[in-house]
């Protein structure tokens, strides 16, 4: 039976087809000596030989900084005005199966007790096209958190490398519509998909045990926290590249009489994250902040939203200047 395929040579046509209708096409590309997700205009810009982009694609749904309102101060008045959500039609191409699995949790958070339209409107207009991995490195651990290069969770369209083509599988309705809308670009044929590479499951990690141990709050003052994480320098880089981290801060910026209200990424790794105006800081030490990150991934978040707190992409491990490896902590908590 002939399958739906996308010839790699036709990627340019797909980009044109998307951008021609006014959409933006986001893909991994080389920028300043590394692979990052960026808006691209041509197929030549797209990186083909990569494991994972340094950034997650979350910034196209949840930008690092965005204006959510504008204000003008009068003598006795405050004039607050909402702004239009900027939500262009977007295709995220070449995401990996691990990071796509972060979307369920993102959605749950941004629709929790308040519908954050700045997120949902963008999400509605975004199609996520993943490509199964044919390469991995020693930071990848999707298989340890019950995902794999074959998972389609969160993807609208799932591709697999197949020599000069990709096999195409539309997963969601949105994905089906996308393939239909650009039907001229997709072809059919019978091709054999290249083998996926499966990162080895880390033997000593038992996720159920990790969450079990975290549930019992007596671990809070466990000496193991400072022991394993005192080297953390609190730079927050891990949270910025993490596809499931979604904390933000609201700031007002401007001149004395007018300005904008912005929603900016924040990180629980900063000491100012929990610093009270009184000067008291309930998470005074870095290991307590790190404990929070770990708890968020494997306890609070999965409990509250049943989404995955960590998808095993390994970005935090790669980016960490002191090589603090989250899987080494998972191992400790599997004991």
């Amino acid at each position: 039976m002939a399958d739906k395929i996308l010839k790699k040579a036709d990627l340019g046509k797909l980009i044109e087809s998307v951008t021609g209708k006014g959409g933006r096409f986001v893909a991994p590309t080389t920028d300043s000596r590394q692979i990052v997700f960026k808006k691209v205009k041509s197929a030549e810009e797209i990186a083909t030989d990569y494991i994972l982009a340094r950034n997650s694609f979350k910034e196209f749904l949840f930008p690092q900084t965005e204006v959510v309102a504008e204000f003008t101060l009068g003598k006795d008045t405050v004039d607050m005005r909402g702004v239009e959500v900027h939500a262009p039609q977007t295709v995220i191409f070449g995401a990996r199966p691990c990071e796509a699995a972060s979307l369920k949790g993102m959605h749950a958070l941004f629709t929790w007790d308040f519908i954050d339209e700045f997120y949902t409107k963008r999400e509605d207009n975004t199609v996520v096209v993943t490509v199964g991995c044919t390469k991995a490195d020693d930071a990848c651990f999707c298989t340890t958190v019950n995902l794999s290069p074959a998972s389609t969770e969160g993807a609208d369209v799932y591709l697999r490398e197949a020599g000069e083509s990709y096999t195409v599988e539309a997963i969601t309705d949105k994905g089906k519509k996308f393939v239909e809308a650009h039907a001229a670009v997709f072809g059919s044929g019978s091709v054999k998909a290249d083998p996926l590479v499966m990162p080895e499951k880390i033997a000593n990690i038992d996720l159920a045990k990790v969450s079990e141990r975290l549930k019992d709050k007596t671990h809070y003052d466990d000496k193991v926290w400072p022991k394993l994480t005192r080297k953390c320098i609190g730079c927050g880089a891990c949270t910025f590249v993490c596809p499931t981290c979604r904390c933000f801060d609201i700031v007002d910026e401007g001149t004395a009489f007018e300005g904008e209200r912005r929603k900016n990424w924040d990180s629980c790794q900063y000491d100012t994250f929990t610093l009270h105006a009184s000067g008291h800081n309930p998470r005074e030490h870095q290991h307590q902040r790190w404990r929070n990150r770990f708890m968020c991934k494997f306890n609070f978040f999965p409990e509250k939203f049943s989404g995955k707190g960590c998808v095993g992409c390994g970005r935090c491990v790669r980016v960490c200047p002191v090589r603090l490896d989250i899987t080494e902590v998972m191992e400790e908590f599997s004991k």
Partner: protein
Amino acid sequence: MEKTLRLKAKELLESGEVKVVIGYGWNRSKTRTTPVFITDPADVDTLVWNPLCVNNLSLYLTRKYKEIKALGRPAIVAKGCDIRNIVVLITEGQFKREDVFIIGMTCNGTVYKQDLWKGELTPNIMPTKCHNCDVRNPHVTDFVVGEKSTFTPPEVPTGMVYDKVKDLDSKSQSERWAFWVKEFSRCVKCYACRQVCPLCYCERCITEKNMPQWIETSAHPRGNLSWNLTRAMHLVGRCTFCGECERSCPVNIPLNLINQKMIGVVKEAFDFKSGYDEKTHPPMIVFSPDDKENFIK
């Protein structure tokens, strides 16, 4: 060298002369080094020494690390370039020379970033600082590990960073401005550069002062530029070119260019290079009647 290092660490811990040894160890898969804090003499075999030991551990001696301070007197495994930062910290009154036991490692260079390591240290994967290093034999120490290095740095400093600085200097002001605006536009305001810098030890960084807000925290071009320029200015005459900020920047902003440019300016104006002598105060914190002061016009 590892054997000597471990023996010394053991001796120091056993005698109680120090309570913690700050050094390097392996990650689980032994592909990367990571900082370790050894408090038990039985654990000294965790310590390793190799060209992947890139981190400047002097960071952990600063006042931000109260928990590490609480462990007691530290010994630190340090390369010559790391010792330069320890020296700056001492000259700035952060602690006294005798508060730390310095285990100086003679050094033949490290990799620029650990991911570049393919099993062999070749010149092309070494940072510019190593090619011009005059402290391969560590200069301020309590104990030295390793054979004496015979390396002499080139008369005129060479390497990528110097070339690029020269190249930028030859450009017009507007071209330079455009270059930096473009580079800084990628900044994600994670502050990794500050967190990893041993000399950014302020407990409340100016970016976190919001009454008034000196620096906009948003990662837009204006906020990014004011952040990066402010940090640069705060390191003039202090930065040792250890390169940790550039190594840690997740978006690869070439911070070493700024660092080296400032070092050149200070060298020219004051004939001073930071981090060599713990008894000389850096030019920015001393008043001298001989100062030219020709910047006041």
